[in-house]
C-alpha cells in the first residue's frame, strides 16, 4: 500500500484544523498509543490528534483523503485484537475528548452521546435518571464509540441483547470527509439497506462515528444474583440449556471454574465466598420489585437443584454482590497475572454447544500440553478462552499457540459458531474470519469496504483488509 509519508507540511496544515495542544507528533506520543490492551502488535502513528468535534474530524478526513494519509480511530485503547493500532503510521484520531452526553430524550427513551463517553459514565448517567443502558461489557472504561465499533456484548446479553440492539442512529464521517446521519430516533425502519448496522462492528474501517443515539430501558429496581456450585464444569454448563429452556429470563448467565476463581483471589488479595466446588454458574435476575425477582429466581433455583447443582447461594446485598462480582470482573487481569504471556479467543457457539466446546478446550489443553483457562457468558454462548504461555520458550509458545487457535476455531466452526462474540477481528483474527465465513463473504465485505473507503485509508490492515488486496 502506498500511503503518503507525513511530513512537516502536513503537521502545519493539520494545526490549522485543530488546536496545537491537541496535536502530538511522533516524539510526543506515549508508549500506550502503539498497542492496545493485549499487546501483541505494536506500531506508532506519526501524529496523534485529540479530536474535538464532527467538524474537525471531517476537515481532517478531507485533508488526509487528498493527501492519501491513513487514519486510525482510537477510544480508550482497551481493545484486545489490535484494531486500534496504527499499523501504517499516519494519523491516530483519539475521541476521548469528545466525551459529552448531549441529550436525554425521555419521550423517545434515547440518550445522545459523543463517541468518547465511557461506558461507566453512560451507565451512571442512565442510572441517575432511572434508566438502564443494558449493554454491559466487562471493560467499563471503554468508550461508547469503541463499544459500537466492536458491537460489544457483555454480561446482560442473554436478556437484553448486545450493543447493536441499542443503537438508534449514528453520525458518521466518511473517509472523504462527508458527514452522514444514519438511522434516527425511530423505533422501526425499513428504508433501504441499513448502513447504520454496517457501521456497527466495523472496527473503524468504514467511517468514523462522531455521535450516537442510544436506546435506554427503564431501570429495574431490584437485582439478585445466584451463585450455583456444581461438582464439575460439565454439569454446570449442561444445566444452562435447561435454564434457558425453562423460560426464566436471567439477565446474565456466567460460568466460572474454581481455578480461575483462585487466581482472582490471589490477584485481589481477597477470598471468594465459596470455593469448595469445581465449577459455578452465576445468574442474575432483575425486575421492578423484590417479590417479582424472587418469584423469578425461585423457579430457576429449584430447577438447578433438581439438575445436579450442589446448592444455590443467594447474592442479594451490596456487600455480597461486591464479593462475587469483584472477582468476576478481575478474571481477565487475574489470568494475565498468573502467566508470563497470553492470547485470547472469544469464540461464540450456539448455547447448546457450550459444554461441548469447553470440554474440547480441556481435552486440547491436555493434548498439546498448554494451560487453557476460560470463563464467560454461558447464557449467550460467548466464551473467553485464554492460552497461557507460562514457562514455554518463544518457539514452543508460538507453535502451540497457533495450533491451539487453529483447533479451537475449527471446532467452533463445526459447532456452528463464530470467530468473535464481542472483541472483534481487528488485526489478530483475520485469518480465522476467512476460514470461518469463506471467500464469498469476504469478497462481499471487501466490496462494502471499497464503496465506503475507495482509497483504503481508514484503519488499513484490519478486519478484511489484511488478507488479500
Amino acid at each position, binding site marked *: 500500500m502506498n500511503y503518503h509519508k507525513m511530513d512537516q507540511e502536513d503537521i502545519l496544515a493539520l494545526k490549522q484544523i485543530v488546536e496545537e495542544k491537541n496535536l502530538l507528533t511522533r516524539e510526543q506520543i506515549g508508549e500506550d498509543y502503539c498497542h492496545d490492551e493485549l499487546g501483541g502488535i505494536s506500531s506508532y502513528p506519526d501524529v496523534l490528534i485529540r479530536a474535538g468535534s464532527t467538524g474537525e474530524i471531517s476537515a481532517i478526513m478531507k485533508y488526509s483523503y487528498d493527501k492519501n494519509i491513513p487514519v486510525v480511530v482510537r477510544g480508550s485503547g482497551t481493545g484486545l485484537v489490535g484494531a486500534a493500532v496504527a499499523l501504517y503510521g499516519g494519523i491516530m484520531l483519539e475521541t476521548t475528548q469528545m466525551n459529552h452526553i448531549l441529550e436525554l430524550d425521555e419521550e423517545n427513551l434515547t440518550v445522545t452521546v459523543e463517541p468518547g463517553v465511557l461506558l461507566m459514565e453512560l451507565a451512571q448517567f442512565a442510572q441517575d435518571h432511572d434508566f438502564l443502558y443494558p449493554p454491559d461489557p466487562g471493560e467499563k472504561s471503554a468508550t461508547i464509540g469503541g463499544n459500537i465499533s466492536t458491537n460489544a456484548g457483555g454480561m446482560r446479553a442473554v436478556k437484553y441483547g448486545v450493543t447493536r440492539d441499542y443503537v438508534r442512529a449514528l453520525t458518521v464521517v466518511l473517509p472523504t470527509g462527508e458527514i452522514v446521519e444514519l438511522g434516527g430516533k425511530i423505533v422501526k425502519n425499513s428504508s433501504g439497506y441499513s448502513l447504520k448496522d454496517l457501521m456497527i462492528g466495523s472496527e473503524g474501517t468504514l467511517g468514523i462515528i462522531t455521535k450516537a443515539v442510544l436506546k435506554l430501558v427503564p431501570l429495574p429496581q431490584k437485582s439478585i444474583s445466584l*451463585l450455583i456450585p456444581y461438582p464439575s464444569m460439565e454439569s454446570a454448563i449442561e444445566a444452562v440449556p435447561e435454564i434457558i429452556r425453562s423460560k426464566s429470563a436471567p439477565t446474565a448467565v456466567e460460568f466460572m471454574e474454581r481455578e480461575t476463581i483462585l487466581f482472582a483471589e490471589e490477584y485481589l488479595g481477597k477470598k471468594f465466598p*465459596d470455593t469448595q466446588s469445581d465449577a459455578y454458574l452465576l445468574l442474575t435476575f432483575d425486575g421492578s420489585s423484590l417479590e417479582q425477582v424472587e418469584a423469578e429466581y425461585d423457579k430457576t433455583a429449584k430447577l438447578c437443584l433438581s439438575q445436579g447443582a450442589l446448592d*444455590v447461594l*443467594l447474592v442479594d*446485598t451490596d*456487600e455480597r454482590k461486591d464479593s462475587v462480582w469483584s472477582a468476576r470482573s478481575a478474571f481477565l487481569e487475574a489470568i494475565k497475572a498468573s502467566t508470563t504471556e497470553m492470547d485470547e479467543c472469544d469464540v461464540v457457539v450456539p448455547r447448546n454447544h457450550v459444554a461441548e466446546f469447553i470440554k474440547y478446550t480441556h481435552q486440547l489443553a491436555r493434548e498439546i500440553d498448554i494451560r487453557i483457562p476460560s470463563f464467560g457468558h454461558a447464557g449467550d454462548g460467548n466464551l473467553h478462552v485464554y492460552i497461557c504461555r507460562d514457562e514455554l520458550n518463544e518457539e514452543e509458545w508460538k507453535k502451540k499457540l497457533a495450533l491451539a487457535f487453529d483447533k479451537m476455531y475449527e471446532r467452533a466452526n463445526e459447532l456452528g459458531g463464530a470467530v468473535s462474540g464481542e472483541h472483534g477481528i481487528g488485526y489478530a483474527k483475520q485469518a480465522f474470519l476467512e476460514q470461518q465465513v469463506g471467500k464469498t463473504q469476504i469478497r462481499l465485505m471487501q466490496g462494502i469496504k471499497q464503496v465506503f473507503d475507495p482509497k483504503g485509508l481508514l484503519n488499513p490492515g484490519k478486519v478484511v483488509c489484511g488478507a488479500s488486496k
Partner: protein
Amino acid sequence: MKILVCIKQVPGTSNVEVDEKTGVLKRDGVESKMNPFDLYAIEQALCLREAYGGKVDVITMGPPQAKSVLLEAVYMGADNGGLISDRKFAGADVVATSYTLSQGIRKMGEYDLILCGKQTTDGDTAQVGPETAEFLGMDHMANVQRILAVKGCEIGGGNTVTGEKTITVEANMDRYLQQVKMVLPCLLTIDKDANTPRLPSYRRKMAADENCIQTFSIQDFADQDENNYGLAGSPTQVERIFPPQKNTSKEIFEGDADLLTTTFVRILGGKKFI
C-alpha cells in the same frame, strides 16, 4: 461448642441526609439489611462449629421485621434465632441496648462463646459488644482477627471433656497484635475482613423451620423493671441532629516550587498529617 452471635438489622443504605431547611432526615427508601460487620461474626461462628461441633444461634433486638436478619443467618447456617422485641425497648441507647441484649442472651440459654460484629453501620459505636460482656459478667476481646486455638470443646466434648474450656485469639490493637488466651465463656467482637462470609443458601431457606425463631419480650426476662430498658434505662439523650458542614472547597495553587512546598506543608499540618 455452643456459640451465640449478636446481630442487628440496619438501614440498607447510609445515604441519609438532613434537609438543611426542615431538619428532616431524607432517606433513600426504607429497606434494611443485616449489619455487614455481623456477617464476619456469623462466618467465624460457623467455622468454629465445623471444627468443634456444637451449635450456632443468633440473637437480635429490634422491631418485629428484624426477624428477617435472623432468618438470613439461619440460611447462612445458624441453628436457631431469638428476637427481642417490645415497645418498652424504644429509645434505647448503648447501655440500655446492651443490658436488654444481656437479658435476652441469658434467656436464650448457656453459651461457651458470644460473638459480635466489630460495630454497626448505623450506630458506628463499637460499644454494644463490650458493654454486653460487662452485663453478662464476662471478659471480652475486641477486634479479633483470628482464632488460634480452642481447648476443651472438642467434638463430642462438653460433657465428656473435663477441665477448663479456653480460647486463644489474636486481636488487632492498632500498632500491634495481641495473642490472648481466655477462659470460656467470653465475648469476642470480630474484626472486619477477618474472613469472607459465606452466602445464604437457598437449600437451607427451603428447609428452614419457621419455629427456629423465638420471640422474647420484657415479660420473658429475669429483670422486668421497666426503668432498666428503653428510654428510661438510657443515660444519654440526643439533643438534636443536624447536617455536617460540608467541606467541598477546592483549592488550586500555582507558583514556584518553594511557594508550593510551603503550601503543601501548611495543608498537611492543617489536616494533622504531620
